[in-house]
């Protein structure tokens, strides 16, 4: 009985919080300013990038610097097809295009381990950017493209739907046997293969699934930027930010990367608007401090805080009982 209430408590509290947050997010355009809606759109994009990055790189330890490539593919899908198809179809196609690219890249490179894999994914962004630039300049005769204009509220809801789908899939994978298998790959790939796990297939498919959401997010955000060129679409910032945000939030818990992306995304906006000249300096300083003093990220801090609070409560309860006895 006691055990039962404990477990249901464990699910009820986060469930209620999630629901309240989702309702708040879904009704946001009704009461918030246009600025808040735009700000939240980009924060949601960061959360999508970070959570989907964590789906693959979190448990396996394969640090991918390809998010910018997948995001960029989504952006260009939107730029190319935005006028021909309705937005939901374009978002789906952005995801699909990234999925296909990731499948190809994964099949080619997931034999690489550690830093070699990281460097390859890093190079991939540059490769696609330059190929695209060459194509645009030499064949098309222009550098950038205009993307179909969509109103901010629609963009926000598009991003919100991709966000919810990302969280659902990430949560499902984490809880499933495949989540456990991905962790075992991170621990010892050789042992994982020897207990019947098809490591190559699992890695490639998970890598590709994580790319779907990045591509979809790219397809949405392109409509807000209205003009894109290869430098805007394939910006390294979008490869590094998800990694930093995941570390900042802490990858040990499911909500860590979400928290990290939300807090850093907001922080970036505040620093850029308030301290445009010192933005990078302050941003870097905060990151260094967090990495030095919070090895398990924000989620680790909250976890420790919660444990300390329980300890305190317990001690107080203990003291009260002793007092009653005397």
């Amino acid at each position, binding site marked *: 009985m006691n055990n039962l209430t404990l477990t249901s408590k464990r699910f009820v509290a986060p469930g209620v919080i999630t629901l309240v947050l989702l309702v708040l997010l879904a009704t946001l355009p009704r009461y918030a300013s246009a600025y808040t809606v735009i700000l939240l759109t980009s924060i949601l994009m960061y959360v999508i990038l970070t959570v989907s990055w964590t789906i693959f790189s979190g448990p396996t330890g394969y640090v991918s610097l390809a998010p910018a490539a997948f995001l960029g593919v989504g952006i260009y899908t939107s730029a190319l097809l935005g006028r021909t198809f309705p937005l939901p179809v374009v978002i789906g196609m952005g995801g699909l295009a990234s999925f296909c690219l990731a499948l190809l890249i994964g099949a080619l490179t997931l034999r690489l381990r550690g830093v070699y894999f990281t460097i390859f994914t890093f190079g991939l962004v540059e490769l696609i950017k330059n190929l695209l630039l060459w194509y645009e300049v030499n064949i098309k005769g222009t550098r950038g493209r205009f993307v179909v204009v969509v109103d901010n509220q629609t963009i926000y809801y598009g991003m919100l739907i991709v966000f919810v789908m990302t969280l659902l899939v990430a949560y499902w994978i984490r809880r499933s*046997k495949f989540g*456990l*298998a991905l*962790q*075992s790959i991170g*621990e*010892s790939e*050789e*042992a*994982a*293969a*020897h*207990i*019947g*796990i*098809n*490591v*190559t297939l699992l890695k490639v498919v998970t890598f590709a699934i994580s790319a779907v959401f990045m591509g979809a997010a790219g397809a949405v955000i392109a409509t807000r930027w209205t003009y894109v060129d290869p430098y805007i679409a394939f910006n390294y910032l979008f490869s590094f930010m998800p990694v930093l945000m995941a570390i900042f939030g802490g990858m040990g818990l499911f909500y860590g990367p979400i928290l990290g992306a939300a807090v850093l995304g907001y922080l970036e906006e505040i620093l850029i608007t308030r301290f445009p000249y010192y933005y990078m300096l302050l941003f870097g300083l905060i990151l260094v401090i967090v990495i030095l003093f919070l090895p398990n990220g924000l989620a680790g801090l909250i976890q420790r805080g919660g444990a300390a609070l329980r300890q305190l409560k317990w001690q107080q309860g203990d003291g009260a009982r002793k007092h009653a006895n005397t």
Partner: protein
Amino acid sequence: MRILEGEGVAKSFGGLAALCHVDFGVDQGQVVGLIGPNGAGKTTLFNLISGALVPDSGEIRYKGKRITGCKPHQICRGGVARTFQSVKVFAHLTAFENVLLGSLFGRSRGASSAEAARETAELLEFVGLSAMRTTPAKDLILSNQKRLEVARALATKPELLLLDELMAGLNPTEVAQAMEMVTRIRDKGITIFMIEHVMKAIMSVCDRIIVLHHGEKIAEGTPQEIATSKTVVEVYLGE
């Protein structure tokens, strides 16, 4: 019946021949030992059987079917499980999760998760780790990590189990327990092929012994034959 056989198996690393044209066979239901001085090629042979490495030439057959060139997970799903010389447990997962993975992805994959959890609990009991099911594998002492590897391998439901130096680094009590565990595994009907340096263990547990030296098979026979073989004694002690 031969459950495993190898014909002319060869493997070299760069210019170094780790194994040169080795023939070997393991009969179903037996415990077969693989011994030899350091660098004889014992672990290389295991890596070739389990699919971690591909032989340069020769052929390995499991239950009459050629398995050379198959991937490790395919060989595992065929019914060959192994442990590692330097333990490769999933350090940050619990003992239960380590074994559960074998059950979920081994030969019985497709079974319900409740079934897998039940099997896992049974196997932890079998190797004597029930009390440590929620302990992360990295916090177990070496002998328990080795038991955990055995349980994880057994969870894949093998017919042939490859044990790579199960007893290395264990104290005499733990060696005795490990020997007893090997007998219990054989009593389940699982064929065992084991690399071992602890002579007492190998002599009392094995039905047959294969001796490797410099990548070549120099002797094969019952423990008595091996113990009295002149070539084996020369290899180990010098002439």
